């Protein structure tokens, strides 16, 4: 029996690989191997006071650290029934947009684009296409500026606390952000040009199910507590408290990440899923962007997730600017976090991290110490869908040469923008 083995995926966050077994013309086992070490953080966090939980669990992943922090706080605040102020809601959403801008720019320009153009890295690509790499760097920096200003640090935000924020930004800081975001708006066209110019890739064509947070305000990632699944014409809704219906995970030996399905079927989360679920928002600039990228929904090609990220990059910058203008118009108030009164109970927080649905669910005792933590990450939710798409990729490839298969498999893997540190989450068995 022949196998295609990608020992160690490059240009992704964390440590993982792919193994595909070929038995004559048919495809045997397909594994997305996750060998990122188990840190057991969800067990280790037990016993900690409620205000220590977010700083610890944000360390699950750096690229999504704002999402982990805020989803953690959402779960904790839900457990205690804490209501944060409308201003804090806006600031949290702005922080999310900043993270998404940084993450999408990093992924599109540094991790994914080099593949399409046959370069090993963005550093190598910089010699041939300096403008594209500079553009990616500028947008990354813009996302980081938002995160530094609102979160207090670009990686592992320090300013987000139960009840709101340690300190709110000053008017001068918001004006600085507004200027930077306006410059970012001017870069959007170039983003679409770069992504539209990449060679078309269609390695695996198949029906795909999608799941994303139903966004009450369409373009937002933070508010909302209901997930919608779209599977061909079928639409199902799952409330935050019932998240286990999505994350009916199974341990598998080849991976420290568990596998999820809904109704026995794998589903995809992330940019493409968000656009598919919240399709009503695709008007104006976004509709134009979709057209420029020839992106049609629902997509039957996981590589389209890269295009969806480019559309979101445009919408994130637009929305972040809108939020900053809103905050400046209303006048920012120097407010303290809402008071937290601890009580025994359970709380769940669901948000959209850059890579898709992120769920934190906690149980607290009456003294505000955490007794159980459950974290479900986008890459873990995606693992089964990735394996399905790896299988289709090999099935639909006329060639059996290992180098060709390996390249295609890696490109499909990267299109998911996997975050493997995130995927090694620890869920207590139910």
């Amino acid at each position, binding site marked *: 029996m022949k196998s295609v083995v990608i020992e160690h995926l*490059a240009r992704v*966050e964390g440590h993982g690989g792919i193994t595909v077994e070929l038995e004559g013309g048919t495809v045997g086992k397909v594994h997305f191997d996750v060998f*990122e*070490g188990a840190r*057991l953080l969800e067990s280790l966090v037990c016993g900690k006071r409620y205000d220590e939980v977010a700083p610890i669990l944000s360390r699950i992943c750096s690229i999504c*650290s704002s999402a982990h922090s805020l989803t953690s706080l959402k779960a904790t605040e839900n457990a205690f029934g804490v209501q944060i102020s409308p201003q804090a809601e806006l600031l949290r959403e702005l922080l999310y947009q900043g993270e998404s801008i940084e993450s999408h720019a990093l992924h599109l320009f540094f991790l994914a684009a080099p593949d399409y153009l046959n370069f090993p890295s963005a550093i190598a690509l910089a010699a041939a296409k300096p403008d594209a790499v500079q553009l990616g760097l500028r947008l990354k*920096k813009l996302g980081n500026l938002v995160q530094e200003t609102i979160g207090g640090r670009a990686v592992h935000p*320090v300013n987000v606390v139960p009840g709101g924020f340690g300190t709110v930004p000053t008017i001068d800081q918001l004006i600085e952000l507004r200027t930077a975001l306006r410059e970012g708006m001017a870069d959007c066209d170039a983003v679409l040009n770069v992504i539209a110019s990449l060679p078309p890739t269609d390695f695996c064509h198949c029906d795909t199910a999608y799941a994303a947070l139903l966004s009450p305000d369409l373009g937002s990632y933070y508010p909302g507590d209901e997930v919608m699944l779209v599977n061909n014409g079928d639409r199902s809704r799952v409330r935050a408290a019932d998240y286990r219906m999505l994350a009916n995970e199974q341990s598998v030996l080849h991976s420290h990440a568990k596998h999820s399905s809904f109704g026995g079927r794998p589903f995809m989360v992330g940019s493409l899923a968000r656009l598919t679920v919240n399709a009503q928002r695709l008007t104006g600039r976004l509709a134009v962007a979709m057209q420029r990228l020839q992106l049609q929904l629902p997509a039957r090609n996981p590589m389209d997730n890269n295009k969806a990220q480019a559309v979101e990059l445009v919408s994130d910058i637009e929305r972040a600017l809108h939020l900053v203008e809103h905050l400046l118009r209303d006048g920012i108030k120097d407010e303290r976090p809402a008071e937290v009164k601890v009580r025994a109970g359970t709380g769940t927080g669901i948000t959209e991290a850059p890579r898709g649905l992120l769920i934190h669910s906690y149980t607290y005792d009456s003294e505000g110490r955490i007794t159980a933590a459950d974290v479900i990450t986008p890459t873990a939710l995606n693992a089964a869908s990735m394996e399905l798409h790896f299988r289709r990729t090999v099935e639909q490839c006329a060639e059996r040469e290992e180098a060709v298969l390996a390249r295609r498999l890696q490109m499909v893997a990267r299109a998911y923008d996997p975050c493997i540190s995130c995927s090694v989450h620890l869920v207590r068995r139910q």
Partner: protein
Amino acid sequence: MSKPTVGIFGLTGCAGDQLVILNCEDQLLDLVSLIDIRDFLMASSENDDDCLLDVALVEGAVVSQRDAEKLRAIRKRAKILVALGTCAVWGGVAAMDRGADRRKLLQEVYGEMGLGYDSAATQAVHEIVKVDLNITGCPIEKDHFLAAIGNLLNGDAPVYPEYPVCSECRMLENNCLLIERGELCCGPITAAGCKARCPNLRVACVGCRGPVSDANPSSLLAAFEEKGFDRQAIAARLRTFAPQGGAQ
């Protein structure tokens, strides 16, 4: 003169320190013109995983045999090995309770199958191999990384603050969160260098940079107890990012 060869590696962690390197947006292209990055899996799909390295930058903690073997192989290749970030320097969050029964935890989380996983009590890089330079922080500060590269290019040893976060916080004229507001702030025993990011935003220091070299935990413990915190809460806070006995 040929450019120094550099490898950038991640053991088990969040990749945050490698991300800080990629976040040097204004310096990144200059940086890669001064050093020859041969092995950087997070950023490149073409790596020489065998060549000798003038400098190896290693982030993350050792939580498995696989990590330990990888680290020993890196050490053999490298003239200078730099531990990058709190996980590499101290063990980080994964080391916070390393006395716990690993098998029990694995079984709790993954069921019987967990017992087959390659998993060991978390260790810092210096517990496995010799480390030539520590750059702490969770994540590292951008300017500390850039200074280290500049210094190493010039043959100098980088120097980092050897005073606590409190010193930086006082320079910024902040009100003291511990004394004036009775919060569990780890500033007095935590290594400075972050410009007191957290207390400067009215948020208590969580000690993410690890202990300062002349830390006096017993005096902090007394101060906390005076403020009415129980020992369990204090102990949990103090060993979040660096395990007990992890001092080097």
